[in-house]
């Protein structure tokens, strides 16, 4: 980390008609780090991703990617970015290798380096033995790996991952986490949007929690947890009336709570002896912070 910012957003606003998808967002992604954009559906994560490739143009605010100002210099920035989209847009009638070949051209990899770039990407994504397989014959997990490999053919300085594991089974998800983690270990800067808390917790150095188009909190996951949810929580189960009682009692002694469908979690009970209700003790986690800050329990 050299203190340079790979992404710098200030007061970014993006409106679609009456809807404000991104509402005064500030975002810093220091070079060499992995930043997770965590937020519920509709929080503005995907719009933010589109703004970074100038596929959406901001109505207000300043955007810089790798030192280039957007949207004017976006093309120069895009040349050094790799993008893994949320929705699969591979060419399905082409083989794995052909898909990569096309992208070496789109990302202007020199003629003499193309072969090596393709081999390197195949190896990274562990698809070398599938090079001649047509995409529509690949499993969901392999297609995802190919999408990531495709974004890496030109050795980008910055990789944008939009919901990289959405809709995949847990085993495949872990496989992809290993891939992303390896990328991070090489020093590639990563901005990843996700609504999976575990994903952000495992991969991101810094998490930015988004709700309603803006940032509601930012920091390393452990720090966010300590700051907003304390170290321990008490989980109280019971019928709705009992849960409401627990919430009222906790509020009266200035303890924060969150609903989880069947229970109430009273947060930050460490050092709150006597004030905490009886129940099951557990360590707090990023999900507590997420629910607390995005107001998901109301919706």
């Amino acid at each position, binding site marked *: 980390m050299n203190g340079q910012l790979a992404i710098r957003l200030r007061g970014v606003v993006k409106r679609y008609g009456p809807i404000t998808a991104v509402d005064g967002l500030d975002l810093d992604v220091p070079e060499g780090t992995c930043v997770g954009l965590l937020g519920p559906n509709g929080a503005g994560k995907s719009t933010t991703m589109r703004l970074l490739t100038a596929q959406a143009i901001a109505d207000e605010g300043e955007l810089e990617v790798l030192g280039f100002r957007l949207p004017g210099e976006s093309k120069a920035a895009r040349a050094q970015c790799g993008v893994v989209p949320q929705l699969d847009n591979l060419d399905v009638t082409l083989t794995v290798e052909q898909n990569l070949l096309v992208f070496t051209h*789109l990302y202007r990899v020199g003629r003499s380096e193309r072969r090596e770039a393709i081999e390197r990407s195949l190896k990274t994504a562990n698809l070398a033995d599938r090079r001649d397989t047509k995409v529509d014959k690949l499993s969901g997990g392999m297609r995802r790996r190919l999408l990531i490999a495709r974004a890496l053919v030109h050795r980008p300085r910055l990789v944008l991952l939009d919901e990289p594991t959405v809709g995949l089974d847990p085993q495949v998800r872990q496989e992809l986490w290993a891939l992303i983690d390896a990328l991070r270990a090489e020093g590639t800067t990563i901005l990843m949007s996700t609504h999976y808390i575990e994903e952000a917790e495992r991969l991101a150095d810094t998490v930015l929690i988004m709700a309603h188009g803006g940032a509601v909190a930012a920091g390393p996951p452990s720090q966010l947890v300590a700051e907003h949810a304390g170290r321990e929580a008490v989980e109280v189960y019971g019928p709705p009336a009992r849960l409401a009682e627990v919430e009222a009692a906790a509020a009266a002694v200035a303890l924060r709570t969150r609903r989880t469908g069947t229970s109430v979690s009273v947060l930050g009970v460490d050092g709150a002896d006597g004030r905490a209700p009886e129940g099951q003790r557990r360590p707090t986690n990023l999900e507590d912070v997420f629910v607390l800050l995005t107001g998901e329990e109301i919706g």
Partner: protein
Amino acid sequence: MAASASRRLGRLERPAMTGVLVREVVNFSSFWRATTFSSTVEPTIYLLAFGFGFGSLVSEVAGYDYVEFVGTGTVATAVLFSSAFPAMFGTFIKYKFQRTYDAILAAPVDTEELVTAEALWIATRAGVYGCVPLLVALVFGLDPAFGMLAVPGIAFVAGFGWACFGIAIAGFISSIDNFNYVISAVLTPLFLVAGTFFPLSELPEWAQVAGNFNPLHHCVELVRHAAFGWEGWSDLGRLGVLVAFGLAAWRVAIRAMTRKLVD
């Protein structure tokens, strides 16, 4: 200011357009057989149906043998079918269903380069497939002429215009069903009143005047003159119309697709 301008990559860059073209060419390698089949069989059927079916009733039209009249005319049909239609449907499918353009525009490629490269590619295909009816007509007895060497060029220029037209339409519409309006209300009349199957000189005056605004008509006439003898300035004028049509449709297509692809 100067520093930031120099870091900015230019417009209509060759590497960007090459990237888009490579994608098209590699994809084409997986479906060229089907395209070539339909591009060859269709004009042959037109030639057989009209040339011989109709040709048994009328042996000569506008001073030409009817089979030769139709054989040269259907070049324009082939150009239209291999440019406007793939442009409309291909663009819409790549935009809406395959989301190909999302991937391409995330790379250092701008909408202007994307549209231009795709139109050039379709125009190239039209330049090749446009010649097929002429080859079929040669088989059926049309006399070869040196002027015919200009046919791929004419087909390319006309194909570029129709490709841009198709891309623009795909940019304007919101549902794939809307293509029906364009096909029925625009393409079918233009296709029929282009002088392909009957000369426009047989039509009422207003229709003849209107025909001059039909780029397909100028394509038909140019191909016929390439085969039977050039007509000097008027042919140059027709070429001018095709070029103007191409340039106008190109700008409209870029505008329509930018609106569609960039929020």
